[in-house]
């Protein structure tokens, strides 16, 4: 297995620090750079860039406008793969929108939808597609053909050949709220499909009355979990510190990347 690349997310407010940082192999791009970003040319030249924007929700087919945007961003970044999420966050008619990643029901109907729409998107891209798991905070009792998320994901990857972007804090949070050991829950997932791994910090959230992803350093337990996961993901190529927020500091970003690298 080739050495894993270690990277972070592009945070526009940290452009000056990222432009001279060492020890970072790649930047994931959740948003395009502003035309006025003075550091963008240096960042583009310095880093491998991973397209990680919101392209659309694959419970529905992407329209031509979204596909054209995805292709344009992929070309702009010269990305080795294109990432999207297993999410369904707005209603079909567009009336309600959560503006936050939210998983679909893990049913046959949604599997059919995601397989068809991801296959169609993959067919329009010049780069491989990878899909990221999304944490659920509660279970939904609807849907006659419900199946466990890891089973649903395995069937999706087998049907599409798409790669898996494994978000480890998402797995850790689900395990926490299910009351199971993270390692045991992780073992259920199709780790042989993993291309990229996300690592992040978690903090207590007042509304959730429990932990959730936060723009903070991953603690030792999360880094141990990462080390546990990495050896079980033979196809993984990259680990990314998953934090993009105006409140993220350069110290936290650089220290997190350094600690991730040391823990691998």
């Amino acid at each position, binding site marked *: 297995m080739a050495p894993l690349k270690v990277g972070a997310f592009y945070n526009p407010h940290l452009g000056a620090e990222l432009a001279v940082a060492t020890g970072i192999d790649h930047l994931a791009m959740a948003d395009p750079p502003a035309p006025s970003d003075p550091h963008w040319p240096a960042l583009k030249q310095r880093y491998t860039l991973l397209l990680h924007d919101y392209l659309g929700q694959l419970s*529905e087919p992407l329209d031509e406008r979204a596909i054209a945007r995805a292709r344009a961003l992929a070309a702009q970044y010269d990305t080795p793969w294109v990432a999207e999420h297993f999410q369904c966050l707005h209603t*079909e008619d567009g009336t309600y929108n959560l503006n936050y990643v939210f998983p679909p029901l893990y049913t046959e109907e949604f599997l059919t939808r995601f397989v068809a729409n991801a296959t169609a998107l993959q067919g329009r891209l010049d780069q491989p597609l990878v899909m990221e798991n999304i944490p659920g905070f509660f279970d939904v009792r*609807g849907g006659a053909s419900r199946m466990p998320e890891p089973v649903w994901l395995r069937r999706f990857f087998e049907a599409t050949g798409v790669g898996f972007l494994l978000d480890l804090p998402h797995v850790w949070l689900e395990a926490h709220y299910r009351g199971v050991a993270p390692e045991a829950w992780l073992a259920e997932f199709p780790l042989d499909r993993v291309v990229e791994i996300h690592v992040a910090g978690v903090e207590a959230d007042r509304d959730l009355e429990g932990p959730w992803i936060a723009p903070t350093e991953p603690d030792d337990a999360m880094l141990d979990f990462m080390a546990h996961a990495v050896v079980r993901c033979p196809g993984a190529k990259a680990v990314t510190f998953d934090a993009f927020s105006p409140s993220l500091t350069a110290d936290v970003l650089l220290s997190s990347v350094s600690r991730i690298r040391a823990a691998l």
Partner: protein
Amino acid sequence: MSDRAVQDQVIRALADAPYRASAAWRDRGLADAARVERFARFLARHFYHERVVHFFRYSGALARVTDRRPEAVLRAPQFDALLSTAVLGSRETARAVAALVVAHVAGGAVGTIPYLADLQRYEETMMVVEAGPRVWRDTGKGDGGRGKGTSPELVQGTVLLELDYDLPAVLATLLQPWATPPEAPRRPAKLLVARSRHGRVTVARADEAVASIVRLTDGVRTLEDLARAVRLPPAELEAALSGLTEIGAVRFSTGS
């Protein structure tokens, strides 16, 4: 009911507090009510944090003078009180949240910033105009075209702002480093704030002709009526309407 329809009900329950409290939702027993409520509150705070930080970024830049960060209001009891009626993305909730922010910032040390009231009206308008349902996906059924009607109408939510200070002259400077708050020229400015079908908010300076078109475009007056009323040659009126349609301020009916 399809699984997609069930998913839509869950999304609506998370976004729409009155629906979440209704028998129509609760009687279905689709999910643990306490967990749904906690997640809905988390989502609401996240939803409006993003918008307040973005739309009130100029007030944010002035916080070292006012000592009031706009997003601080999202941790205040007044915002918590809104959560039981909030509908994420609705104009009503956007208006209510923006009003909380305006009151919070206005309660700070604002004496040295004469244009702050105009600035807050501008920011509040941006946030409210951005709200409302949007088209997430074009269906390919011609829903993005100009339509066949001959009587243009103003798109609901479009706002013509008339300000005492020329804010566009100072906005970019506010986001740059400064020692004392940059000044805005005291001269009237008209700004048109509109949103496209896909949710993109545009602000454009409006001259007197554009302002008149916006005031008179009512879905009843024909192009000929408008041309006479605003005293523009038909070609210039067409060009102006084309621009206004592009940014989502005006539309033509799609009926036959």
